[in-house]
């Protein structure tokens, strides 16, 4: 195995306070959780846009495995941010919330996007 000391770039969405700093396509209006220069759908030019803090849970699940720094149990959810992209978040307090539940981004934990219901 190669031995490296460089940490790979953090691929998670960038959060500023209680919003995700993403972008939107000026061509097809598609929202994206990352600061794209060109749209993944149509290659149109994207401009920066902030999404959240509000969103709706698409689904959530308690995870009973240790994953990275996360001790079990913790709760993950796919959340459709209002008029924005779908993002994978950590739910606080830990516990599943039904699809359709309104949640708010409250910040990050070691880089994970955190929401509360």
């Amino acid at each position, binding site marked *: 195995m190669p031995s490296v000391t460089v940490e*790979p*770039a*953090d*691929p*998670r*969405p960038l959060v500023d306070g209680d919003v995700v700093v993403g972008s939107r396509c000026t061509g097809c209006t598609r*929202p994206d*959780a*990352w600061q794209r220069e060109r749209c*993944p*759908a149509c290659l149109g030019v994207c401009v920066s846009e902030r999404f959240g803090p509000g969103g709706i849970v*698409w*689904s*959530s*699940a*308690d*995870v*009973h*495995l240790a*994953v*990275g720094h*996360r001790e079990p149990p*913790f709760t*993950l*959810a*796919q959340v*459709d*941010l209002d008029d*924005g*992209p*779908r993002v*994978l*978040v*950590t739910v606080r307090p830990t516990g*599943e919330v*039904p*699809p359709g539940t309104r949640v708010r981004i409250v910040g990050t934990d070691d*880089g*994970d*996007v955190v929401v509360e219901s």
Partner: protein
Amino acid sequence: MNPSIVGVGTSAFGRFPTARIESLAHTAIVEALDDAALRPGDIDAAYVGSVFGPAGIANRVLAGVGLAGIPVYRIEAACASGTVALHEAQRAVRTGMHRRVLAVGVEQLSVVFDGPIVPEPTDPEGRSGLALPALYALQANRYLAEHGLDPAVLAHIAVKNKFAGSMNERAHLSGAPPSVEQVLASRPIAGPLTLLQCCPMTDGAAAVIVGDGTEGGVPILASSFVSGPAWESGSDEPWSMRTVSAAASAVWEASGRGPDDVDVAEMHDAFTIGEILTTEALGLAEPGMAGRLAAEGVTALGGRLPINPSGGLLSRGHPLGATGLAQAAELVWQLRSQSGRRQVDGARTALLETMGGGAAGVDGNACVVALLGGDR
């Protein structure tokens, strides 16, 4: 040319951390060559599926069984790596590029991970903690909520497949099948998925030789390969369903057959919810009904449409790159009436499906659906 499968073989499936990875593949390839009554010199090209196999593994495997010197392609398509290898092998024959092609898949997960697969840290969702059971658990909770179903519907899939797997001597987990209550009471893993609803981490290999139809074999009526489209805000179907349906539609169109023509199927049950979503996406069950079909025995051995008579990934295990070819081997044995106690009586048309996933933002990395046999 009309491609057909002329030989199949597999290793045993289990944990073999002290074996050399090549030896797992060699067992499968030699069985397939013997099954086809072919020699290494008869093979024109090879497609090798492996996800976590080391660099150079494709050439090392082939060189050890007299297959050095032919064109060799390594394929990584997550859980569908072996099935994509089969798809490409049959395509090479169908288009006349080659006459006989080997598809082989090999994986030795026991030397790569101590526990479950560690999510890829350069992937946004992997870095956010989305282990594979969690990806499927999110779909399970969405599906159960959508259809107003109890988690017990998931457990019926595990009971059914582990019953079939108890008759498969090559399976990783071939012990006595659990009850629904035992499945539900096993250790929670993610969401409604308990330990007995998750496939084990398995080492193994499988091989399939595709010929051009002039030497008999099991016809590959159609095969399709779809990479998932974007899966994002506004996609209401659970992850993977659009991709599986697209691959299935292409197979129905190319073959002129439909779900009603299928006698037996092997599909991607890495987690119980996977089989449920796939059964419905393939058109083999109405939305919300796949769990009930398992509970009622319709999709069990002896039922109208047995699904995963091998025991599926839940029993055989899931050596990623080998899985699709192990599924194909099972279906070939079924169509030749060589499946012993697991035999599906009168099986003439068989459906194969494998779904590979894990990349953030796409509805699956790869799905292959193929239709085999087809005697009317």
